[in-house]
């Protein structure tokens, strides 16, 4: 695959927005894949006992999901060289077939040396921002 050239990129460029669904089944799969079996991600009774509305999504599942806005656009996940997020609000996942959804948008906010750029990501769940200071540094071709 040909890597996108930095000449195609400018500050303010908006990436295509995407909406992602998170279901209880996804939480269980992610627990198994990651090894994070924290009970608050799969047991409603315990989640409520510790003050959560219901089971919540793993922050890393959210983080790994929303970066697809960048990697789908870029075409190569291997060109994400830095990625950080702050998990500001939990994402409760209801016991429904539909689960819950996150709307994700992203735009280029800074051009760096060496054909790299910073892409800032916004993730909205129930009209509330669930990630803050979320940004990826990506590598482009010259």
């Amino acid at each position, binding site marked *: 695959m040909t890597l996108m050239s930095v000449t195609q990129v400018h500050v303010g460029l908006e990436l295509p927005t995407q909406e992602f669904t998170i279901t209880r089944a996804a939480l269980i799969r992610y627990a198994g894949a*990651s*090894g*994070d079996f*924290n*009970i*608050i991600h799969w047991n409603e009774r*315990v989640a409520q*006992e*510790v*003050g959560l509305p219901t089971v*919540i999504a*793993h*922050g*890393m599942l959210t*983080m790994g999901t929303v970066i697809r806005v960048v990697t789908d656009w870029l075409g190569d996940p*291997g060109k*994400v*060289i*830095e*990625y*950080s*997020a*702050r*998990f500001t609000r*939990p994402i409760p996942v209801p016991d429904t077939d539909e689960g819950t959804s996150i709307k994700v948008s992203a735009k280029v906010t800074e051009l760096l040396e060496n054909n790299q750029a910073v892409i800032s990501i916004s993730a909205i769940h129930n009209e509330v921002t669930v990630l803050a*200071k979320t940004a990826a540094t990506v590598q482009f071709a010259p």
Partner: protein
Amino acid sequence: MQAGGQVVHDPELALDYTRVVHGEQRFVQHRPIFAGDEITSTVSVDSIRSAAGNDMITVKTEVHATDGELVSTVYSLLVARGVGEES
């Protein structure tokens, strides 16, 4: 994540994992990790501080290839929620 389990299940740190949520996460990838790479993760607790009744634990994981090359550096902020205020 497997390496991070060393921290959250450490008997001396004695975290109540049901009260632990993820505050922040940062990955710095020094080179891509390829299929077939053999890597080791070294986990350290960088800092622990209390804020607003919660304990904030910063964990750093350095991932090295077997030849010693630093492949990635990973920072995690774990938040052990205090029992004082349920939200």
